[in-house]
């Protein structure tokens, strides 16, 4: 596999504080138990939300280029790291919004990049410290759904970055988080047209991350969220849970990349459709026209004089 060739030793783990390292290794042990040797995570979202920063935080190195002030380059990047027989592949992607519209070229490039790969987990990234959701968010979700199918949302998590955020006006932090995540989850359900039964009861998990150097740390020197959770192991744990949640991973084959061919849909039914049109539309219309002609009122001079033959008494 190409990924294996490119993967390097996950040395970044060593720069985490020991508490984080041990938690991570414990989580990674689960994969060994289940005899899974690799995991592919796709990170997507609008531009400037913190996708590349999150990838770097998890990997522990500056593997993905962060473009703080301008739009990212157009290329998706695959970051592969192995540790004791297990390989983690994270794919960082360019932001999907360009100039106020969904950048179809970016979507196509991502699809092309993923050809013959299998996506185990999708991380949909957005910022926690934004108050509103708008139509652009829905368009991004729709674009992802149209590209990969709505099944991808069964293997997804909502990642909210800039989690070390003080809500304004003294709003309760947890309340703010739940409001923000509810708003985004609603957008995801609408944009992907998910119905209740699609989600099989379980909803998309929400993960909070804080990628900046200012992130508060606990006594064990782990990066923590305002509620005290160490978020890096939490992120990896949630990713693991998703990968084992029973839903099928998304395999990106040629058919998916080219898109379902709408020309083929229903083609087999065409003779039936034509027969239906002929019998139920064309024939009744002709019959209706003929009865219109028969019912048409004739002028008096026509009705009165039916010919000398019939006038004989």
């Amino acid at each position, binding site marked *: 596999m190409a990924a294996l060739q490119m993967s390097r030793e996950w040395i970044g783990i060593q720069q985490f504080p020991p508490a984080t390292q041990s938690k991570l290794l414990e989580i990674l042990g689960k994969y060994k138990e289940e005899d899974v040797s690799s995991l592919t995570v796709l990170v997507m979202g609008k531009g400037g939300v913190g996708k590349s920063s999150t990838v770097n935080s998890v990997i522990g190195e500056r593997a993905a280029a962060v473009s703080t002030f301008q739009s990212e380059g157009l290329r998706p990047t695959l970051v592969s790291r192995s540790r004791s027989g297990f390989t983690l592949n994270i794919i960082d992607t360019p932001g999907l919004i360009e100039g106020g519209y969904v950048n179809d070229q970016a979507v196509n490039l991502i699809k092309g990049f993923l050809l013959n790969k299998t996506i185990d987990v999708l991380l949909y990234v957005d910022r926690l410290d934004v108050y509103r959701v708008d139509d652009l968010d829905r368009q991004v979700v729709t674009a992802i759904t149209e590209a990969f199918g709505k099944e991808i949302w069964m293997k997804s998590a909502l990642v909210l970055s800039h989690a070390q955020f003080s809500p304004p006006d003294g709003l309760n932090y947890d309340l703010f988080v739940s409001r923000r995540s509810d708003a985004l989850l609603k957008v995801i359900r609408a944009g992907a047209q998910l119905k209740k039964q699609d989600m099989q009861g379980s909803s998309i998990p929400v993960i909070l991350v804080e990628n900046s150097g200012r992130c508060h740390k606990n006594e064990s020197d782990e990066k923590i969220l305002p509620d005290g959770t160490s978020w890096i192991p939490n992120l990896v744990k949630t990713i693991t849970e998703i990968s084992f949640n029973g839903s099928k991973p998304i395999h990106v084959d040629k058919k998916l990349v080219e898109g379902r061919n709408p020309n083929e849909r229903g083609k087999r039914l065409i003779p039936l459709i034509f027969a239906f049109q002929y019998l139920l539309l064309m024939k009744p219309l002709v019959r209706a026209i003929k009865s219109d002609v028969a019912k048409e009122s004739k002028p008096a001079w026509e009705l009165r004089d039916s010919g000398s033959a019939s006038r*004989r008494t």
Partner: protein
Amino acid sequence: MGTSVVVVEAEVVGMVIFGGICFLWLFQRPSRTRNSHRIGILTDYKRRIEKARPCLLPGTVQREMMLMLRDERRVGARLLRKIGDRVNRWYQENGYAFAQVMNFGSLNSKEVVFEVVEGDITKLVIQFHDKLGNVVEGNTQVPIVHREIPKQLRPGHVLNMKAASQAVKNIHSLGLFSNIEIYPRLDEKNEGGVIVEIKLTEADQKSAEVSTEWSIVPGRGGYPSLASFQPGGSVAFEHRNICGLNRSLMGSVTTSNLLSPEDDLSFKFDYVHPYLDGVYNPRNRIFKMSFFNNSKLSPVFTGGPSCEEAVPPISVDRVGLKANITENFTRQSKFTYGLVLEEITTRDENSQISANGLRILPSGGISVDGPPTTLSGTGIDRVAFLQANITRDNTKFVNGAIVGERTIFQVDQGLGIGSKFPLFNRHQLTLTRFIQLKHVEEGSGRPQPPVLVLHGHYGGCVGDLPSYDAFVLGGPYSVRGYTMGELGAARNILELGAEVRIPVKNTQVYAFAEHGNDLGSSKDVKGNPTAVYRRVGHGSSYGLGVKLGQVRAEYAVDHNGGTGALFLRFGERY
């Protein structure tokens, strides 16, 4: 031949008192020989009357005359003349121009006999004249004129001028004659008979026409400049009434630039062959074959309102052959079915064959990987398909306003013949209902009724759909207030419209609302040109307008942008 007798029997004296006058209407068919003046012996006369045929005078008028008689105690000459005038008046008013009361019968018997010559047609003659009035041998075969003549204008019927004017209308609709006249005249050989002569002057069979025109093309800055005047021209010929059976061959070649005609050359050759089932068969089926080409800018590849850069246009050139049969049930309702073979080429603005639309990148550059324009992917498609169209049109004019309903169903059925073996079923159903809201008296000069128009148009396609055949939303005949294609191009569309028309003085004022929707099928057109060119896929509009003669002036607001504009249009929207 030719007299009918109206007999009024009245017991003038005495019977009145005893409970009613009995009236016996007897009808006599006279023998050929005479004017039956002579009443003859009662028995003879009664036998004659028994053999008679009914006259056309309806029962209501006869009852009227009965009442006139009943009111009088004596039947005098003045009363008889009055009844006679009444009979004459009825016949004249109802178009029987040659009907006349000939005689009042004897007053001596208990019967009063009125003899009426109704004007029975003895002969129908069809004559061809040249422009100077001389009788000539016509090219047109007589049976095709004969089938347009109502039954009532043939021997065995009474001459009615309304039937004659209907015959003139019908013959005129053949389009073969420059002059049609109907001359009824008295038949000298048969007393009381009428000979109907139809005199026809045939129009020119062959015509050829060359016309030129100047077209002003926008130059730099949008203003017309001298260097950009373009001379155009067309050559057309027509050969009509071939074999005298109203078959015709027409051809025309047009170019919009005579200086380099290959730039924009379009031609059209038609052959029309009516009376497919035979001249004597009442069914009217017409076979038509045409060989054509045309070139249009594709509204599928146009931008939405938010597309700041102009979208590079794509023109769709079609060359093809159509052969179909049309059955005309009425002047308005018909059923057409046939075969179409086409070669379609998509070109960019430099007339180069273009297999993909151009797409403007967010960075400002132009990429050539826009949506594919053709099914084959090469820019040239060849296809053969069946096409059928049924139009059921029961609309009529009430004081100048259209009232009634119209239903149109059209289907293009692909046969798997052509580039990439296209198999498809492309169908459209259009329903328009003009509902009269108030009853009005019909007549010239009377006011028009207020009318509510409800309109729906559904279009769908299953199977192979090339972009140039996608249904387009927006435009003066789709959703008013938007330019053609402004709302998008899709596989399935639904357009709805409603309009209320109110007569005001001697014009018409109306208010309308329209909506067009792609039913989510924009993405099912390969390459999704709706999204690529930043179009919304649906939109509504509403507005007001006033009809000024043939022109409609309307103000339409497009709901997507919230802006309104004034438009001037010709013709009808629905």
